């Protein structure tokens, strides 16, 4: 089954209100740029755009502490004092408070929840919410630019409403800790996270030995890759771990968090991937969704802090894969001209970084070897595979 050009694109202009501060690295302009690229290239019909509603208190409370929900609502008031919210991880440099924070993040959660409903009910085969992917948010704490965990809210929703078994794939450069901890004891939610090792990088978790607890033991899978990992080694890990685990687990629906901060340009992380991985990974998850769960696939965005050179290309390729569009080699001139005026750096002309775009990593062989050994240890320790 190929995509039919009729996937659901969850979007609202109000998504861009999820904005902490002018100079903050989490910049919603990336959503506008990506939407504009997708439209300019002709990959989106007006009737594919579906406007979300805010997630309700009840839907949020499935995964968040109600006291935390109260705190976020209080922090959303224009006169709120940032110093009052430290226990909830709010009012910090990472997650400053801003007026309308609760509404903005509830809408994103509502968007991912809607994407899940559209896919589970069979109205759409695939759905994308590129504003979603706030994978660091915890039960009672904002963390790493994430206030409400839209992914966890949507997973809890499909668990309750449809009794679905869920596979969650997280290929953001940071560990998908928030989603992992929320479902750590649930054997019906498999979480797989590939990320740069937490030796130095936030959030510091995502070690191989984090495998779930109690009945959920084995249903958290972590693949921590070395700093400076490049495309081939990253994709080897993706294929070696994701394909067998998803085939064996046989989920009813797949969620894929497509944070694109593993690119070598990304200012917050230390991996050395090119845009090739953002072309290949959505293909793998889409084909797995076809093979294992009748196509049911929800894709969300996530991290991605080079908003000029990486995010628009990565998520346009993601949408093209979900929507069955054939990707051109070059970005449209009109789009480049429009955004180059504003961009702080030269925009790339090709979707796929041409060979030789980046310098070779001197310790490549050693890094690849370390990653291979790590992948073997991950697979050997995943009990349900055997």
């Amino acid at each position, binding site marked *: 089954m190929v995509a039919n050009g009729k996937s659901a694109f969850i979007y609202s202009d109000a998504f861009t209100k999820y904005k902490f501060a002018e100079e903050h690295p989490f910049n919603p302009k990336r959503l506008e740029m990506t939407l504009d690229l997708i439209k300019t290239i002709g990959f989106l019909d007006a009737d594919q755009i579906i406007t979300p509603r805010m997630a309700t208190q009840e839907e949020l409370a499935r995964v968040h502490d109600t006291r935390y929900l109260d705190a976020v609502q209080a922090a959303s008031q224009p006169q709120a004092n940032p110093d009052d919210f430290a226990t909830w991880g709010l009012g*910090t*440099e990472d997650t400053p408070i801003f007026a309308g924070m609760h509404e903005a993040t509830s809408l994103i959660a509502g968007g991912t929840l809607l994407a899940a409903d559209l896919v589970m009910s069979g109205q759409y085969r695939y759905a994308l919410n590129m504003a979603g992917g706030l994978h660091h948010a915890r039960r009672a704490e904002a963390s790493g630019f994430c206030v409400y965990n839209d992914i966890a809210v949507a997973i809890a929703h499909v668990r309750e409403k449809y009794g679905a078994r869920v596979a969650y794939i997280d290929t953001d450069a940071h560990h998908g800790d928030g989603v992992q901890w929320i479902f750590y004891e649930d054997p019906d939610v498999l979480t797989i996270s590939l990320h740069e090792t937490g030796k130095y990088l936030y959030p510091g978790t995502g070690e191989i030995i984090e495998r779930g607890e109690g009945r959920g033991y084995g249903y958290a899978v972590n693949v921590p890759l070395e700093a400076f990992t490049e495309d081939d080694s990253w994709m080897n890990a993706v294929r070696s771990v994701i394909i067998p685990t998803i085939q064996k687990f046989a989920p009813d629906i797949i969620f894929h968090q497509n944070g694109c901060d593993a690119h070598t340009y990304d200012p917050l992380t*230390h991996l050395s991937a090119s845009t090739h991985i953002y072309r290949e990974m959505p293909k793998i998850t889409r084909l797995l969704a076809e093979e294992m769960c009748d196509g049911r696939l929800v894709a969300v965005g996530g991290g991605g802090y080079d908003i000029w050179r990486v995010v628009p290309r990565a998520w346009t390729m993601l949408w093209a894969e979900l929507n069955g569009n054939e990707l051109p080699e070059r970005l449209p001139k009109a789009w480049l001209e429009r955004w180059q005026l504003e961009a702080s750096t030269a925009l790339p002309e090709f979707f796929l970084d041409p060979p030789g775009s980046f310098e070779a990593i001197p310790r490549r062989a050693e890094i690849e070897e370390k990653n291979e050994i790590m992948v073997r240890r991950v697979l050997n320790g995943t009990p349900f595979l055997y």
Partner: protein
Amino acid sequence: MLVEQIMTREVVTLSPDNTLQEALDLSHHHRLRHLPVVQDGLLVGLISDRDLRAAAPSTLEQAESDQILHDIRVEQLMIKDVITAHPLDFVEDAAAQIYKHSVGCLPVVSQGKLTGIVTERDILRNLVEMMGVNAPTSRIEVEVPDKTGMLANISDLLRARRINTSAVMVFPSAKEGYRTIVFRIRTMDPRRFIQDIEAAGYRVVGHPSMMTDGEV
């Protein structure tokens, strides 16, 4: 952190009159590697599953060994001079005791009475928490001259950036006359903090952002 805050209070114990078979059954049933021996609430000894297994002769003499396990009493095999901790000891002192004496646990005794037990695992879990690894953090190592005020100087930089700290550890540095301070800080974006540190004349070490590509 005090021992009484991390110890297990409901301790499974033996009496000196129990047989080795009873001791083995109890250790299997509760999956315990150490069993304190108690008489009238007072700690009189400790027996480990390793001692118990060593006491059970090989399978060749199975029949006989069963008899031995029923005949010998705990009192005859237990260690009598047990290394213990006090409920008000610091966790790091208990860790030092465990390390120095190569033991797997410390019964916790107050006025001769057994009040709890701490194992290697309890201590390790506590140390992991103290190192801040269980909270979402970035890790930054700074090399500073070994003199007073260095920690305060860098803490000032954190305060100015409104960055919370989960843990701070100070280690001797490989370079003579220097120390390494490890910060686990609660931010996803440590770039400006790293710049601040360098601008203040200190060196961030080990961090991938400070490496020329791949030379970790």
